[in-house]
């Protein structure tokens, strides 16, 4: 496999992204969005699309940049650093990867629309409080030539803003089985689909989706009937790797803000960064971030090289990212002292996003168990 070192192209991409986001989407934007009840900034998302980010995983034939998952991870990481909100992971990573694997003409049209920033997708997957895709119980019942979907999806990221939804439904089998799951690609304003916005601590777009006899045609089945999970799993893995990368960025952002504070803040007539106990904790945190960065780079590389064998690499990345960002935000808030507890200060936003991102698409325990299974125990 290629080295885990960044290529020159990747470094250029990172530098460009970092520069752009520092200007266009500093943490202050998240605060403004929150205070104005806006889950993300549509103008910003358009700019990202113009830079090719929305099409980072889309083939050139559909107008995409086709830069691969390592590049997508770099973008997600940089967005995490400034907590920039966008439908990037839902739409440009998860939906795009799934649609690309579906390889239908309809899917290709959708990919072009995603790339151009005209179309936002959400993925309606989990139904309970924890990530467990095979437990899908939302039913798609045969009705004439089509289907009728009934059930509830919890915690659909970007579910409020999406124009289309990939929804995993059960057409056969029972909870816990992959067989019998079918993937539908339907418009989000279809009759009977009720979206309830959830006020989450990270101030982003999350919705509960209630499917009250929602009709779907046979053409709206993506991939094969009863075998939709094989297809969506590719998108979910890509999403897990991207969320892991975002969390690495969140950790890095919190760490950077904290070390900056340690260097500037004085107490007991000393810069607090000169206190050895804090130094050792900051150094340990840095070490954890470095080690996690390797797992993130590896997940991107493996997804690009051997996407069908990426399970271990992706779960390793998400497990490490969840643990590392947790440490980073806890240390960040504690080391900021009282000021870190105030809403007026930004470090709290990192803690809130870390919590949601760690949960999304599987937490540490879920992914550590996947690693263990892949490693034979």
């Amino acid at each position, binding site marked *: 496999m290629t080295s885990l070192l960044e290529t020159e192209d990747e470094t250029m991409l990172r530098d460009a992204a970092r520069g752009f986001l520092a200007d266009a989407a500093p943490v202050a934007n998240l605060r403004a969005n929150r205070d104005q009840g806006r889950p993300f900034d549509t103008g910003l998302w358009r700019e990202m699309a113009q830079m090719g980010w929305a099409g980072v995983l889309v083939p050139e034939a559909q107008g995409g940049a086709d830069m691969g998952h390592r590049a997508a991870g770099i973008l997600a990481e940089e967005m995490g650093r400034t907590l920039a909100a966008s439908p990037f992971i839902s739409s440009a990573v998860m939906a795009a990867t799934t649609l690309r694997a579906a390889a239908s003409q309809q899917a290709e049209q959708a990919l072009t629309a995603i790339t151009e920033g005209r179309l936002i997708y959400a993925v309606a997957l*989990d139904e*309970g*409080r*924890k*990530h467990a895709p095979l437990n899908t119980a939302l039913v798609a019942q045969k009705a004439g030539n089509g289907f009728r979907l009934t059930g509830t999806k*919890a*915690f659909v990221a970007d579910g409020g803003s999406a124009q289309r939804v990939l929804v995993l439904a059960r057409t056969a089998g029972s909870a816990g089985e992959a067989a019998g799951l079918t993937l539908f690609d339907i418009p989000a304003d279809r009759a009977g689909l009720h979206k309830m916005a*959830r*006020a*989450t*601590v*990270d101030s982003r777009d*999350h919705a509960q989706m209630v499917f009250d006899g929602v009709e779907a045609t046979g053409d709206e089945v993506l991939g094969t009937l009863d075998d939709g999970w094989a297809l969506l799993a590719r998108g979910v893995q890509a999403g897990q790797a991207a969320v892991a990368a975002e969390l690495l960025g969140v950790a890095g952002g919190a760490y950077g803000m904290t070390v900056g504070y340690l260097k500037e*803040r004085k*107490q*007991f007539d000393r810069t607090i960064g000169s*206190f*050895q*106990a*804090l130094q050792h904790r900051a150094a340990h945190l840095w070490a954890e971030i470095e080690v996690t960065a390797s797992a993130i780079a590896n997940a991107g590389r493996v997804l690009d090289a051997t996407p069908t064998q990426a399970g271990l690499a992706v779960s390793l990345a998400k497990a490490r990212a969840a643990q590392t960002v*947790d440490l980073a935000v*806890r240390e960040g*808030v*504690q080391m900021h*002292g*009282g*000021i*870190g*507890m*105030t*809403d*007026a200060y930004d470090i*709290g936003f990192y*803690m*809130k996003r870390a*919590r*949601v991102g760690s*949960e*999304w698409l599987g*937490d*540490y*325990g*879920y992914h*550590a*168990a996947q690693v263990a299974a892949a490693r034979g125990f």
Partner: protein
Amino acid sequence: MPETAALDAFRTEIAVWILSACPAPLLGRPMGEDRIVWGGRKWQFQDDDQKTWMQAAIARGMTAPRWPVEYGGAGLSRAEEKIYREELERLQAPPPLESFGLWMLGPALLEFGTHAQKLAHLLPVTRGEIRWCQGYSEPGAGSDLANVQTRAEDMGDHWLVNGQKIWTSYADRADWIFALVRTDRDAPKHKGISFMLIDMNSPGVTTRPIQLISGKSPFCETFFDNVKVPKSYGEDNPSVVGQVNRGWDIAKYLLTHEREMIGGGARGLLGGRSLGQVLGDLDGAMDDPVTRAEAMRIEVNALAFAMTMERYKDQAEAGRGVGNASAMLKYYGTELNKERYELLMSAAGSEAVEWDGPHGSLAPEWLRTKANSIEGGTSEVMLDIIAKRVLELPNS
């Protein structure tokens, strides 16, 4: 009568009194922060029962059971007060009155104040008439509490106070504040501080609430803008407690109290149920080995910590102080509580991250625990105290 028999008799007597004095509707109600009776000029009871109960307690000195009768207390012994608290808990009766005046100002005045100061300030506290807040922290000082910049200039008959306090709980609802102010700018940091009592109604005092990451909070910023504080509120009743420029001694004395109170917050949080039981309500949570192992670890530590609180309390009640070791309670209790909430958040998954989700106020409570290891002295300061004063390790 041997001592234990006397205490048994007291237990019966006080239980009978509680049952007769505390209106029945108050008994057995869940106690939340919203049900606390704080008192003060701006105070409004939620119902008449609260008022009835408070006044009955005032009449018997039971709002401040261990304070001397002449200052509004009941003059109980340590052992008697413990029995009173035990009976309150057993009968599920709420405390008739809570306040910073009872918790903090009282101990300070009883230890350092003049007779006239005690009479003037403690009686209204025990009667729920005056509500106090505490003005220690300042912006930019953080853990370095002695870094007091709010200054009080000596203007002959009064002090002229200018500066700003932060983290003053309920300052917007308090009538008076006890504050650390700098009365000598040339003295070493700890030597020029005085412990001053200031009427919040004085012209130039303003407050502003602080929003936390967890949402609304009782914390305020408090500003002093050319506030005139009389040197004396009456004969032998100066506005400064203890000696001028020696206020740090009083602050240190009170910090020990505060630490014990905050560290104790980790107990009884789940209404007597174990953490594992609460998590067991969430389908499948305890099947995850990571969650199970962590729940076991926290349960073990929480039980042992509760015993430690008990042991330290017994030691204090036996008249042997716990001194700087109280820093351990603060440190351990708040860190443990943070761990507990992290696990609860994780087990409740995506439902937990909603501000008003199916688990009620879990998210804001989780964020609020993060402040516990900062307020009242950070965990780092507690570890410093243990290292230097208990372990007697050398200064760096």
